[in-house]
Structure formats: C-alpha cells, structure tokens
C-alpha cells in the first residue's frame, strides 16, 4: 500500500474531528448553561464545622501562606454528666480564611485533629472586590452543606482508622 502523504492525512484528521463533533457533540461544555461536576475530592473551598472546632490553632500554624486567622477564648460549659464539674472549653470567636492568599494546598484540612475542616468542590465564589474573598466563620459554615461524602476507596486499600 503506498504511503499516504502527511498533508492529506492531516486534512483527514481535522475533517474526522469535525465529523465526530457533529455526530457526538463537542467535548466542551457551554459553561454558564451547563456545568461539569467536579470530582468528589476536588479542592474547591474549605468548609468549617464550627461545633467541632476547638480553636487549637493547628491549622493556622501549619498554613504555609498564613491565611487563616483564629481568635478564641476559654469559657465554662455545662458538665457532661449530671453532677459533674463544669468543663472548660475553647470558644471560637473568629475563624477567617483569606482566599486571596490561600493556595489550596489542603494542609489545614489534613492537620485538623477534630474534623472541623472539610473540602467542598464548590468553586463559584469569585468576587469583584478582593476583600470579599476573606470568608468568615459564618460563610465557611455555609459551605458545609456542599461537602460530599468521602469516596469509597479502590480495591486493596487499607481502611483508615
């Protein structure tokens, strides 16, 4: 079989792609009208479960960008068992993440010992003003609704303790 010149082959490739696009539709998505679902693990935005946070500062200290700001104070909580002594707990006053600085490395979520921080795949929170990218604890708490279940693991994986 004689070799087809590359010039002709190239024309064939582009025309073939045109045919495929007409037949199967494009590979792109018309963004504001249609959206692709990001993967479950996608690191879109960090959500905060305020009840779990003990203001231990671990996330703020391990953040490479210094973009987490936490303030808290100690207060007395009612005893867990009837008749016990009142417990001393940390109360969270302020929990801000500056998304203008955040580089989405996920270290804060990873170091959190009390499961208070989660990744949510939401990504549409751009703002016209850069100052609005500082999410406070209410806003971070609202993201909790969008946090998906952790995915099942592939065969052969060891269960996490």
């Amino acid at each position, binding site marked *: 079989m004689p070799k087809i010149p590359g010039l002709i082959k190239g024309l064939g490739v582009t025309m073939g792609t045109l045919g495929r696009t007409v037949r199967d539709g494009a*590979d792109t998505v018309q963004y504001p009208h249609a959206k692709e679902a990001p993967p479950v693990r996608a690191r879109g935005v960090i959500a905060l479960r305020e009840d779990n946070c003990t203001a231990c500062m671990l996330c703020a200290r391990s953040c490479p960008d210094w973009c987490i700001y936490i303030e808290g104070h100690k207060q007395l909580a009612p005893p867990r068992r009837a008749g016990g002594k009142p417990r001393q707990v940390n109360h969270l006053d302020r929990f801000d993440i500056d998304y203008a600085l955040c580089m989405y490395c996920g270290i804060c979520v990873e170091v959190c010992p009390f499961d208070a921080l989660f990744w949510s795949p939401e990504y549409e929170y751009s703002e016209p003003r850069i100052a609005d990218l500082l999410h406070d604890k209410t806003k971070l708490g609202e993201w909790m609704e969008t946090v998906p279940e952790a995915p099942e693991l592939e065969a052969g994986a060891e269960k996490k303790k």
Partner: protein
Amino acid sequence: MTMLSERQQLSYIAAQAADARLNVELETEGMTLNIGPQHPATHGTLRIIARLDGEQVVWAEPSAGYMHRGYEKLTEVRTFPQVTSLINRIDWLGSFANEVPFILAAEKLMDIEAPPRAQHIRTILFELSRIANVGLFLGDLGVQMGAVTPVFMAFRDREYVLNLIEGATGGRFHPNFDRIGGLKDDLPKGWIDETKQVMKKLRRFCDEIDDLLFGNEIFQSRMRGVGVIPSDIALQYGLSGANLRASGVEWDLRRDQSLPMAWDKVDWKVWTHPDGDSWARCWVRLQEVRESTKIVDQLLDTIPAGPVMAKVPRIIKVPEGEAWVSTENPLGEMGYYVVSKGDLGPFRVKIRSASFNNMSIAPWVLKGVYVPDIITILASLYFILGDIDR
C-alpha cells in the same frame, strides 16, 4: 546627514560602527529584536534578545528572571510538609512530578521508604503528570508553527488526565498529594478503570498528533536539520530528558538509578534518536508519551494491596544530613539537594530544574538560525518558565 543634530550623528556613527562587523561587504544594518517578555511563543515571561542580520540571528540570548519567585529562599522558612505545596508550582504542567524527588530526598534523610502501594501510585501519578505535561507540549508545538488545531486536541485530552489527577488528589494543577512516607490518601473507587479508558484515548491522541503534525511534510521540513545539538555539547550544558536522548545519549533516570519507585517493575523502552535536531527532540517526546501510557497501564494492573502511608511521626523532623535525589521529570532531570539540620524545615534546598539547563544552551544553538527557527528551536527544547525562574 546634514539634517541630523550632532548627538544624532554621533549615535548614528556609533551604531554604524557596531554594525560594521556584522556585514562588512553589504554594509547592511543589523537590528536588535526583543522577543518577549510578553510574546506568544515564550509560554510565560521569557525574554529573548536577538541580534538580527536580515532574518538571520547573529546572536540571541534568553534573559530570565521576569517570574523569579525565590523558591530556594522560601523553602528555608517552611516546614517539610509545607514545602511540597510550594514546589509543585515550579513546573506547573507536571506538578506532581515536582513533589516526588523532594519527598524522596526527605525520605532518604529519614531513612524510611514508602509502602509498595504508595510507590506504585506515586509512579502512576508521576507518569500521568508527564502525559499531561508533554501532551500539552505536543499540541503547543503546532501553535508555535501556525497550526491551530493540535493545541485544542492537546487541551481536550489533557483534560481527561487532569480530571484523573484531580479525582485522585483533589488538586488539578497542584496536587500536593505526596507525603513523607507515602501518600495523603488512597485512590477513590473506579479510578483504575477510568484511567485505563483515558490511556486508550491518549494513545489515540498520539496517533492523531502523529498524523496531523509529525507526518506533515511542512512540519518535517521546518524541524529536520534545525537546531542540531551534538551529544557532547548537550552533556556539557547539562541538557537532560528528551533533549539529551534526542542527541543520542541513552540515559533515563527512571531506568538508570535505583529509586523506591515502581518503574523497574514494568516493561518499557527508553527512546533515543541519533539526529539531535528539533525533529528528534519532538519525536522522542511523542514516543515517551506513548511509553508512559504503557507504563501506567501495566502499573494499574499490578497495584499491590496494603497501606499507602508508612509510620511517620506526626511532627516531622528530618535528621541532619544532605541528600540529592533527582528524577526523570517531564522536562528532564529535576533534582533537589536537601540540606537538613535536624529541624522542622530544610536548611537549604538547591532546586536543580531541567529547563534552566535546557535553556542555557539557547545562545549556542540559536546562533545563525532564522527568526522562525528561534520559535521552533525554543519550542522543541521545551521549557516551562517556572522551571527556569523557580
């Protein structure tokens, strides 16, 4: 000349004198052309100063530093786990591959090794980032030469790879998934089957690029015999990766050094090309993408069961010592010279990035070529600006 002021005359004479050596016979004037820092051919902000005689380059010299981020300094104020989030921005197209050598160096200093399952998954992700990176190179090659279609095919199929990387690690571009002692997490369910499908798509993409670009006679006439780098020059400048293999040096760090990674467990081939021209460099890369899909396919079938994380202390302190680990990254040899003082963070990290050496040959290889060849030679040397400037 009478119309000119004295200062203009003097500068004119000075310019003439400077140009005289360019072309004494024809008395033509040379021209300095500034390509960049903002230019479509420089993937970022590289500036090339070219002295031209007509369309021919008398000398050309890249000028870097428009995007220098000082990572070597920044690593000194970060802890070991924080460094990976930083260094995967060096070569932003193959970012997972940047993390691996650093983690391996830290593990070497701590004298631990990741579990076999983690080594396997690391290798898979490493090869996936190579495919994402070099796949885009293959498309971008077309754009540098006026063919608009290949780059869209590259973006289309790279998207599948990025989806895989995001599905496993959570980060599309900056996975930050590699940890000292293993990986952050195991693979999600269904990932392996999906990856196999994507590898089939990528092999088709390679065939398409082969037909559309590499088989094209115009492309060949632009690439063959242009920008020839002999092997001794390539070694002297420290060219690495496909650039070195295209000059006929059969040397691949994946094969030729013993690392706790899974490359030695599968069957693959190191491609070389004897010519050393632009065509050879691009062709070797195309073959390497194909080879990578094969490596990934084989590794997917043989992932061992077990944990993905070795037992490491919660707060990582790396013992005092020095370690050098380099791997065969998409762009070439990427290595970290890590000096630890037994502290939470490294004392000094020397980042040996591939593009820095690969571009340092540019003044040598650009001498005497035509202006359009500047673009093709730079494209075939394949640099990422973050990898030059760090």
